[in-house]
């Protein structure tokens, strides 16, 4: 907390946060409406990426490094979630009962 944020950076970060929040809402519409399931899967994945960006921006805004783990965590859970959905869409089963 030693460094103060410069006014320019602060404005930029706030604009970015607002923009990303709006895009999350639009993606939420895609998740709910999305004509097919792959659409929903992609939208969910993108929401997660936006969340990571949001956490990163908050870390800049609050001048802290404590959020780095959080960003990594969201990324990992997102990765696994997306893989699970993708596998379900492709094969109809997430964990194969027996391996050939």
């Amino acid at each position: 907390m030693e460094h103060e944020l410069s006014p320019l950076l602060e404005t930029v970060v706030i604009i970015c946060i607002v923009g990303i929040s709006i895009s999350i809402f639009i993606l939420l519409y895609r998740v709910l409406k999305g004509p097919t399931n792959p659409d929903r899967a992609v939208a969910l994945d993108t929401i997660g990426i936006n969340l990571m960006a949001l956490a990163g921006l908050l870390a800049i805004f609050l001048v802290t490094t404590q959020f780095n783990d959080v960003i990594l965590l969201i990324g990992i859970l997102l990765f696994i979630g997306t893989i699970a959905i993708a596998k379900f869409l492709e094969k109809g089963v997430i964990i194969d009962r027996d391996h050939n």
Partner: protein
Amino acid sequence: MRTNDLIFRTTTSLIAFILLGFSFYLLLAGHNAPGGGFIGGLMTAAAILLMYMAYGFEAIRKIIPVNFKMVIPTGLFIAVLTGIGSFVFDQPFLSQTYGHFHLPILGDVELATAMIFDLGVYLTVVGVTLTIMLTIANDS
């Protein structure tokens, strides 16, 4: 159409190790920084789940021959034992203490008894998460 998961399996063997390492880091960092037993356990469960998804149920059961249902009480037991430990030293229940130890390679390390409690939480979370996941996945 027959699909194969060659890319998925190759990346999994790499990523699962990174995940396990990261989860262990989270468990150890938990005492003074974001992290701890809960999120560490969740990460470990995620890594194991990834392996399950890539290699199927039977293969992983051979590799990790652990009954995850029994991991739950083990973790709970460890967590409760740290509380009971305070009876032995005549301190109020759940008291914790820490000290600095000089370990080979690592140098000066701060070790806290809260760590053992976190280990209990870690095992419980791994057990619960995997039990739920595998029950749902096998339910058809």
